[in-house]
Structure formats: C-alpha cells, structure tokens
C-alpha cells in the first residue's frame, strides 16, 4: 500500500506536463471567460481590437492594479483594507502639497509614500498589537485619511501643472508605444507574483492567512507578517497615488472614493479568499482585466447608462459562477 520513494520518482504522472498544468491552474476558468468576452467584442465592435482601445482599457486599471497587488497579499494574510482609496488620495495630496511648497517632486513623492507606509504601520499596530479587526481599523483610517486630505487642501483640488516633465514622464510618458504606467504596473505584478509563489518570506503570508495558530506554532511571527502585509498594502496605495499625481498633474482630495470595493472585487474574482490563505496576483490582475473589459465594452457598445449597471452586475455574477463551476469540476 505504501508507495516507496523509488516508485514515486519514476512515476511520470507525479509531475504533469506544462500544458496540462496550465489547464489545471486556478485561473484557467477566468482566462476562458475573458477570452470568450474578447471574441464576442471583436465581432460586436470594429473598435475593440484596436491598439488605442486596448491601451485605454489597460490604462484604466494599471495604476489601480498596483493597489490590487497590495490588497491581494493582505487578503491572503487574512486581512482587509477599506482605506486604500483614501490613502491613495492622501499620497496625491501630500506629494502635491509638498511640491507646491517647493519640495523637489521626487523627494515629495518619496515622503508621500513614506507617509502612506506610516499609515499602514499604524493600522498594523492596531490590528496586531491592540487586537482589533482589520475591517474596523481600516474603516476608521479611511475616514481619517480622507479628512486629512480635505483639511490639507481645503477641499479644493491642487493643480500640479507645474510638475517637471521628467516627473510627469512616469505618469504620462511612453517607452516606444508602451506607456510608462503600464510598464511600472507590469514590473510590480511580475515581481509580486514571483515573490508570492517562490520566496520563503511571502509563503509565510499564506501560512499565516490559512491558519494563524498553525503558523504561530511553526515559529512564524504571525503578528509581524500581518503587520507587514498591512503596511505593504498602504505603501502600494501610496505608490499608486504618486503615479496618479504624475499622470493627472493634479491632486484631488476626493480621489479614489469607493476604490476599495473595486479593488477587493478584483482580488476576489481572481480567487483570493476573504478568509485568508489563498489567492494569486495573476488571478487578481485577471479580475482587474475582467472588470475593465466589461466597463469598456459597455461604453464601446453605447449601451444605455440605465442598463449598464444591470449588465455589469450580471456579467460579474455570471463570471464568478462559471469560474466556480469550472474550478469545482476540475477538482
């Protein structure tokens, strides 16, 4: 009955081929859904398969995608962050305010990201040290950060037209046909995906989220892990804020209202569990792609606004249902 090691090593079936593995991937269902939508849209609209349209679709989620990366990692560790929208705005406001007060924009951006990281650290403190739940802590911080944005700007957007071109480049420039924003996004995604799959540090995030007690018994400092993922999520929201600042040349105190639901939805569609312990960056980004694809397609097809929400919600529900069945079947 017991298999010996020798048996196993010679067993071809133990390591399935690469292609077979692709089909077995958690994300296969989502990819299929996206492909189907793309094919439909290609026939439905002559504009769909143009570079400009594709570029617009990717640009629509590229910066938010950086926040999705942070949120996914946080969700895997068992946390959640409702403050990402406010924190993104906070980065824009702090960076913009400093710049308007004569600070070099690069330095201002660094300070802004550092401040957001600090906000994340404060949340991490309340969660891991005080013992409160992520939900309520980040809800409070969402309100406070928004308040700081309003206070710092008096509620009025900061015009940052004067930002130097070299700085605006990160938000508005292109390398060849590819916007810098998309390049930054891809770099963040690839690194995060790799680390999450391969690095021992980030595997601890999975362990902690899957069963915090088991992780603690294995000597993992779960408090530290959660503190780090909480901080990282805010830091990435800060990075996104700085890029938005460069892209829009302005800092709006009300920026990112409701962003949290979008971001969490993308991660969850991509397979992240709100209970922690599972999720992938790749899946979360596919979630972003799906959401953006649907929004764009509806706009492209001139669907009446009054129908758009209904269709959008229904596609979302259908997609997760199909994905769920595809995954269940594979099991």
């Amino acid at each position, binding site marked *: *009955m*017991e*298999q*010996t*090691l020798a048996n*196993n*090593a010679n067993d071809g079936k*133990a390591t399935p081929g690469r292609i077979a593995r692709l089909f077995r991937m958690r994300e296969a269902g989502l990819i299929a859904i996206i492909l189907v939508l793309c094919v439909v849209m290609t026939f439905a609209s002559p504009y769909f398969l143009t570079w400009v349209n594709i570029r617009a679709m990717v640009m629509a989620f590229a910066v938010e995608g950086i926040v999705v990366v942070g949120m996914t990692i946080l969700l895997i560790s068992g946390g959640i962050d409702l403050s990402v929208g406010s924190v993104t705005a906070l980065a824009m406001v702090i960076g913009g305010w400093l710049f308007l007060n004569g600070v070099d924009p690069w330095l201002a951006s660094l300070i802004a990201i550092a401040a957001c990281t600090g906000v994340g650290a404060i949340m991490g403190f309340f969660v891991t040290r005080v013992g409160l739940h992520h939900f309520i802590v980040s809800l409070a911080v969402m309100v406070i950060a928004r308040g700081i944005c309003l206070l710092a700007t008096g509620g009025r957007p900061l015009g940052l037209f004067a930002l130097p071109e070299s700085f605006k480049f990160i938000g508005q420039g292109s390398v060849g046909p590819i916007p810098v924003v998309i390049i930054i996004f891809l770099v963040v995604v690839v690194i995060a995906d790799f680390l999450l*799959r*391969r*690095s*021992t*540090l980030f*595997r*601890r995030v*999975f*362990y902690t*989220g*899957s*069963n915090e*007690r*088991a*992780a*603690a*018994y*294995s*000597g*993992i*400092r779960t408090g530290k892990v959660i503190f780090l993922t909480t901080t990282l999520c805010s830091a990435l929201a800060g990075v996104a804020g700085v890029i938005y600042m460069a892209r829009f040349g302005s800092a709006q105190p009300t920026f990112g209202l409701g962003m949290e639901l979008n971001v969490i939805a993308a991660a969850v569609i991509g397979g992240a*569990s709100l209970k922690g*312990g*599972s999720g992938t960056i790749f899946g979360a980004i596919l979630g972003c792609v799906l959401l953006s694809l649907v929004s764009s397609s509806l706009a492209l097809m001139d669907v009446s606004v009054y129908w758009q929400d209904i269709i959008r919600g229904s596609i979302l529900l259908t997609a997760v249902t199909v994905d769920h069945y595809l995954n269940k079947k594979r099991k």
Partner: protein
Amino acid sequence: MTQNEPILEVRNVTRAFGPVRALQGVNLSLRRGEIHALAGENGAGKSTLMNIINGILQPDSGEILWEGCPVRIPSPLAAQRLGIGLVHQEIALCPDISVAENIFMMATNASQSMFMNYRALETRARQVLGQMSDIDPATLAGDLPISAQQLVEIAKALTLDCKVLILDEPTAALTSREAEVLFGIMRGLAARGIAIIYISHRMAEIFGNCDRVTVFRDGQYITTFETREITPDDVINAMVGRVMDQLYPPKATAGTLAGAPVLEVSGLGDGRRFHDISLTLRRGEILGIGGLIGAGRSEIARGICRLQPVVTGEIRLNGEQLTPRDYQDSIAAGIVYLSEDRKGDGVFLDMSIAANVSALDIRRVAGPAGLISDAREMRQAADLGQRLNLKCGQLVDPVSSLSGGNQQKVAIAKMLSVNPRVIILDEPTRGVDVGAKAEIHRILRDLANDGVGIIVISSEMPELIGLCDRAVVIREGRLSGEVEGTAMTEENIMRLASVGDERGQVA
C-alpha cells in the same frame, strides 16, 4: 555530561486561566534518549505544560532548565531554536497549503534561503511520510481526513532537528498499525539521544514503549515511575487516586442478542468510496467497525445517517424502512453520529458548553412557547456533564477553555442529549482518560441494554475487542469480514483489515 543528566527540567511551574488553576507547581525531568510518558486524567494539565515548554503559553511562576541552565521560552520560535519540537494534541495545519509545505513550514521559516525549492520539499516530504503512509505530499492539507492530518502533524515533528520531541496524544486517531510505525520511529530517535515526552491515555502504549512515566492529577505533580518497576494499575491509581477494577463492562448475553434487529443496513454504497455494505444491529448489542485508516468506515457511518449522499441501499430502523433526506431527518428518526473530527465537526469552540450540549436538538431545552429556557439548558448540560465527569469552570464558559478530553466529553454529551435510538460513534474515546473512558463504556452498555442500537468505530483495538459484542471489518470500502466472541482477536481483525480473509468468515 552524562547520559543521565536531564536535558530538560521543569520545576514548580504554575499556571492559571482566570479562576482555573491548570498547573500548581508541577515538576518534570527529562533525560537524553529516554521516552518519558506523561499521564493524567483529562484536564490534569498535561497539554498546558507542553504548551509552556514550547513557548506558546507562559508560566505564572516556576522555572524551566535547559541542559541545566534556567531559560525563558517566550515563543515557539525560541523553543525551536533550543531544539524542542511539539506535536499538538489539536491538529493545527494550514488547510489551503500542500502537505509538503505544511510539513516543512518550520524549516522554511527558519531557513536562510530566500526562495522555495518545491521539488526538494516534495521529495523530502515523500521520504518522511513514506515511512508511515501513502499520503500525496502535493494534496492540500485541508482535503485530508482527520487521521491523515494527524500523520502529517507527526511527520512535521519528525523533520525537526530537535533534541526534545513532545508528542501530545499522537495516536488518538491512528490505528495500531500506524501507531506501531510511529513507535518504531520514536525508538530510533531515542537511540540517537533524542528525548521524547509521550502523552497518551492508552496504558498499553505507555508500558510498551516508555522508560518512565510521570503522573499529574488536577494540575499537581504526583510522582514519576520507572515503567519496568510498576503495572498499569499503579499509574491509574496515581492518576485517579483509587484503583479502577474493571475496564470494560460485561458483554451482552446470548439471550439479549437473540432479540429483534434495531438497525438493518443493506447494500449501502455511495458509488465512490464504499460499496455494498450490509449490517444488522441487534437489540442490546454493541457493534464494532474495524479497519485501517482510510478504509471508509467514517464514510459508511456518515452515509447511514445521510451526512453524505448514498446511491444504493436501504436502511431499516426497528423493521421500518427509513428514507431520511438529510441528517436532520436522520436525527428526527433517532439516528445520530459522533464525528471523529472533534474540533472541525464536533464542537462550537467559541460557544458555551451548555449551548454545545443542546445543539443537536435545541427544542429540547425550549419551554412551551418554543423559547429557549436558560435554566433548562443549564440543567441539561449539568446533568450530562456530571454523568460524563466533565471538568470545567462554568457551563457558560466557551468550549475552547476545556482540555482536549473534556471537549470530547462535551461532544458525547451532545449525542446523548437527544435520547437517540441508534448512536454511531466514530472514535468515541479519542483523548479521553481511562476513568472517563470506562464511564463512557458503561454508559454505552447501559444504553444498549435499554434497547438503543450502538455502533462504535474505533482504531483502538483493545477498545473494539473489549467493548463490542461483535465487529465487522472494512477494507477499501467493502465488508471484508466479521468477528464475534472468541474470534475477536487483534490478529483476526488486522488480517481482515489488511489482506482480507481467504478462508471465508471467521465466525
């Protein structure tokens, strides 16, 4: 340093949880290369002490000496650095993670390398697991049944490069076969100078494998014996404070067994894991089900009471055909099931003891208007708790505050609360101390005598043989034979469980 100098010493350690004083100045001294048993009733404080040694809990007072020097162990990480490994009584695996990663979680955490080497991880996991079972290291830990999870927990500890290995009731869900493999490994480790603390309620295991045994009672240190010099009765006497004369109640007489069948199962199968199962349970009889881990015993039991779907077969209760749609119907008909996975399926850890006991049929503690009466609920829990010798603070305390064995008693109390007609118990005395175990056996026998049908699934061979009037054995999802009376021996059951019976039934 001589071989006999203790590697780990616990001196006068106390620990309280609120009003509950779990440990009151206990001592323990562990030599290199010895297998040291720790015995005590449920709630005696064994796990608490182990958690203190492993840095999960901090003592209120007292000291721990490591290789003769006092140490403070603030966290599991610190314990790991000293070289202490612990297999927990309560299984704690990460369900969403592969078995291989679970096994090497501690090593991964401690290693200096930045990146995971999954290939090496899987190969090594296969090596470690291969000694005990054929679990695929790539499966997710959460997909395994509780018994396989227990093996993974053990494998986890075996990979540690430790000087002291603590096993807190590792065999509670194992059959004797896996347990024997484990004992072989333990002896090998001991021979290499590793000290092992072994916690168990099974006297045979203690006397078969351990060099010394330390006994706790009610959080107090009683004594330490050399096992060579004593008998199990001495240990029990030290644990309970009196000699326990008889371990198993008398079996049913031939006359009772001639009665009408209570439960008849015929041709039951789920098309997947078990096939063509036919059983008859007679009035006054306790029927045992034996088999190896993964044979499908639990699934048959769940199939009978519709906790999982079946595709073929029928069930008769007291001669009447029964077609329950789900478990609730089954309970209404009087067939209940006690799960082997106490923590996952058995108890509501965050809820009060009283609410746990009443969960199976909450209407029983409701007043005339269908409203829950706290007083009734408390009374029910108090009555059943007293019958099972439950040790707890208050009945409103959460079940999580109980020791493992006492949690099991709560799960059993829950079963008994509905006055069932048929009870199927899956590993009913997992982690229960000798005294309470005898008590549970006596209660089961009394119930059987009162006409309740009882089926016991047990991996503990002596229990199966001592308690049951008759036993069927399952091998790979099919009935492989039946033993009764004097034919109920370990050898017969093991043979049926592993290779089947070439000569036909051992009647």
